[in-house]
């Protein structure tokens, strides 16, 4: 099994940390992982993206131009990454702020209204965990207990009291994700 994912959105949406949690979750179940951010000025308030690969085998290239899954959280990223999803692959996005919705018919498209859900749950900062929950519902590549271990590993100890809140966000994401296009 090899899963190649791009997560892209605005800086501050928790794109990089979501990738990190996913990568750590993979490590927790003894898989090979790589986490490769686009770094530099792109991180300073503009768009941010990270490539995460989780595999049973040694990972070769950490940089890719086609992905099994694209998780897209703003319009700029939609413009850039819709085309990079492999045929039959997954595109997961939050329709909040998206004016041009994806149009491809050869991929599986899912929506998760994560921003709205996070606001409703009053867990604004766990927005990215709602998205993660939605992704794991579509592709349960890491087990729930390993996600929690991954969370613990990537959060500094002083934030560990926030883990239950993140768990709530993950499970609500699992519930509200819906498919809008079948390949």
């Amino acid at each position: 099994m090899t899963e190649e994912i791009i997560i892209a959105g605005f800086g501050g949406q928790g794109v990089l940390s979501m990738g990190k949690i996913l990568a750590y979750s993979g490590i927790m179940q003894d898989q090979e992982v790589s986490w490769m951010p686009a770094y530099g000025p792109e991180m300073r308030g503009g768009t941010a993206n990270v490539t995460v690969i989780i595999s049973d085998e040694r990972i070769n290239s950490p940089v890719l131009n086609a992905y099994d899954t694209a998780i897209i959280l703003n319009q700029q990223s939609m413009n850039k990454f819709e085309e990079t999803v492999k045929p039959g692959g997954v595109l997961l996005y939050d329709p909040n702020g998206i004016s041009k919705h994806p149009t491809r018919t050869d991929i599986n498209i899912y929506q998760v209204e994560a921003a709205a859900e996070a606001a409703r749950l009053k867990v604004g900062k766990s927005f990215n965990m709602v998205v993660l929950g939605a992704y794991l519902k579509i592709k349960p590549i890491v087990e729930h207990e390993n996600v929690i271990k991954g969370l613990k590993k990537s959060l500094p100890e002083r934030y560990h009291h926030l883990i239950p809140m993140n768990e709530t966000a993950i499970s609500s994401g699992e519930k509200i994700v819906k498919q809008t296009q079948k390949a």
Partner: protein
Amino acid sequence: MKGNEAMAEAAIRCGADGYFGYPITPQSEVLEYFMAEEPWNRTGMVVLQAESEIAAINMIYGGASTGKKVLTSSSSPGISLKQEGLSYLAGAELPCVVINVVRGGPGLGDIQPAQSDYFQSVKGGGHGDYKLFVIAPSSVQESADFVKKAFDIAFKYRIPALILSDGAIGQMMEKVELFEQEERLTDEQVIEKYGSWATTGKTADRERNIITSLDLIPERLEDHNKQLQAKYKKIEENEIMFEEIHCDDADHIIVAYGTSARICQKTVQLAREKGIKLGLMRPITLWPFPKKKIAEYGDTKKGIPTPDEVLTAFEKHFM
């Protein structure tokens, strides 16, 4: 763990005595990691943010002159500033480790990963006829492991060792297994091991030790250069490292190092899925370079373009 952080942690664990550096993207995490980790509390290691890359490399010169295990890191423009210092270090035959997390150039270039400092690295880089031991990791694991390897070679041959990473390996996170903490040498152990040449204070029982790269007597300087070349020959005979992936039955072989080798490995995988017998030869040491090994492919492989044509191109452009 990021590649940059792995190198910093590895330096602490292999008992390094000092790090002197200056921030530059995409390697600032090295200095940041040290400052957050406070190795002076863990092992007694000294860490200092210098006023410039030039000051940092000269701090390395000062520290290495005393037999201590010291390292610095930077990225391409900063490494250019260190070249004078590297030439002095090579001339004075001092052991040290220098990390270059390469970014695009020339000039200020950009901050994206690149391999464009290849020539500078393998040809010496500064003035005078000298070499650095150059080793190129292609993963976070190797980033950590090669810090130790680089120090070993640096002290074995009294030569500056360069770890040629890049922005991709420096910034990416992968699983890494770190080796156990090794003890730092005490001052007494440093004097015992390296007191024959290091400037540790002239005791009554020995002549004074001088660290210099200056010799105003032409014949003596020539002898010194010959001795350096002999040392480089020995390193070329003994310290070459490379990895072969699917080379045995390959019709064509790609030669690539570092991040490029990772990407080419993907190419090999995709080609093999289509039935094309592609292999990958990854030089790990870039100086000394595994040229003999690559030359051998010319005799044993078939196909168009033949691997020896690849070699010719490589020789033409890289060697």
